């Protein structure tokens, strides 16, 4: 008989507000204070983890709002595993549907950028491609080569200036304005720290092409189509200096 599982089912029901489920193991009227201790510890563990993983959301809505929202989220979507550094993958989408956040339409996007920051921080280690590695390459060979992105690279494009808003909030700015210019936030880990840069349409298309496995010539073409006014050599040099490329895959046949 799976009596241990029966107990655990009953315990989880008791935590959710039905203490009578534990009656085979707990005398009537006993244990309310103890169950409250477990409830509080679990909620605190989840909320503290979310506060650590979504610091920009926290700074924008304040401690009380954040902790109340995070506690509701944790009840609906408890962590799937014990590594809480990864907790909150679905928090941005949840915030997007959270009625009290309806008058904060930028909040889900801010949460998404916090999530990408966490992913960049804990991504696999890999050396970044440096300019010297390309200097020996003939221009035609570089054009036909594919540039692999560094494992820590994350980017997200928005129709408004959410990336600038996120950067300003992250830097502790008090007056936050949301511009209507479309922007992309680029995140990449360098020397153990996640660096961020707001980029435009040309760089975004260049990165998308690299992510899709296209050649650097195709990437350059996409960048030029997205914004013909952007000179490509400095664009490429800036991305290279950011350390967004993890490797160069030369054409083999």
């Amino acid at each position: 008989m799976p009596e241990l599982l029966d107990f655990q089912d009953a315990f989880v029901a008791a935590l959710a507000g039905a203490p009578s489920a534990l009656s085979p193991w707990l005398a009537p009227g006993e244990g309310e204070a103890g169950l409250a201790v477990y409830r509080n510890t679990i909620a605190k563990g989840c909320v503290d983890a979310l506060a650590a993983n979504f610091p920009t959301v926290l700074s924008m809505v304040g401690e009380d709002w954040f902790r109340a929202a995070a506690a509701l989220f944790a009840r609906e979507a408890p962590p799937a595993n014990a590594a809480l550094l990864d907790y909150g993958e679905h928090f941005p989408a949840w915030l997007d549907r959270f009625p009290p956040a309806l008058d904060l339409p930028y909040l889900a996007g801010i949460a998404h950028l916090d999530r990408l920051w966490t992913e960049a921080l804990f991504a696999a280690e890999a050396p970044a491609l440096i300019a010297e590695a390309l200097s020996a390459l003939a221009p035609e060979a570089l054009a036909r080569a594919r540039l692999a992105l560094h494992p820590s690279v994350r980017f997200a494009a928005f129709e408004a200036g959410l990336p600038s808003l996120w950067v300003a909030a992250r830097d502790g700015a008090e007056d936050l304005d949301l511009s209507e210019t479309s922007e992309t936030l680029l995140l990449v880990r360098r020397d153990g720290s996640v660096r961020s840069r707001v980029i435009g349409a040309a760089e975004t298309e260049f990165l998308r092409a690299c992510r899709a496995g296209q050649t650097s010539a195709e990437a350059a073409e996409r960048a030029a189509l997205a914004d013909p006014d952007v000179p490509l050599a400095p664009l490429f040099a800036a991305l290279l200096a950011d350390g967004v490329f993890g490797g160069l895959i030369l054409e083999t046949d």
Partner: protein
Amino acid sequence: MITAGLGLKPQHYDDALASDAVGLWFEVHPENYMSAGGPRLTALEKVRERRPLSLHGVGLSLAADADPDREHLAALRRLVDRFEPFVVSEHLAWSTHRGAHQPDLLPFPRTKAALARIAANIGRMQDALGRQMLVENPSLYLPLTGHDLDEVEFLKALVAKTGCGLLVDVNNVFVSASNLGYAPEAYLDAIPAGAIGEIHLAGHGADEGGSDLLIDTHGAPIAEPVWALYRRLIRRVGPRPTLIERDDDIPAFDILIAERDRAAAELAALEVQHA
């Protein structure tokens, strides 16, 4: 020689590297390092180059009525291979239930069926890691009925069935004994000395909910009655690696080192007595 150690917190990485305390070692929760990469792992590697390390798991859920999560075990194995800890430990508790993880150490009735399940899970953990683990006594808050064995009997049976060792958390003994109404001295006196591989010391607090329960907060200095129980324990069993745990309301490194030095002095006094 490994004497008294400290739980390592990210805000103390630089202090940990700079400390010249003799015999100091560190302990971390492996769950906080289960990532593909990133600066935490790099920092831990630097600390490990200078100090012995213990991996103290909080999330394997050994007392769940289910096999330990394979991915979790594999991640733990990678950390063990990379950091070569001198001890690996986990809790006599569960936290995972039907796919959801509750970040707490939850209780269960100590039945014979539970004993068989947990012994099997400890066996799987030790097989996966290729080494012995230590199991830690929990803090308890509920007067559950339906136990077949008392806690020390249960721990002794796990040692006999699996060859695991014990991590004795003296603060947890104090908290549980106070909450459930038994004598902590008798509990500690019943633990077989040969099974004890490590000792934990931490602070507790009153229940902010207003009950008489003591809460294992790890958020305060170690209480004097816990120091007294610690002295009693090590006088009986001899010196053991002893860890100061602090996970909430974390003070400056020096303040934690002062508590750690007190434990180290207790261990040193023992050596003199036995000499």
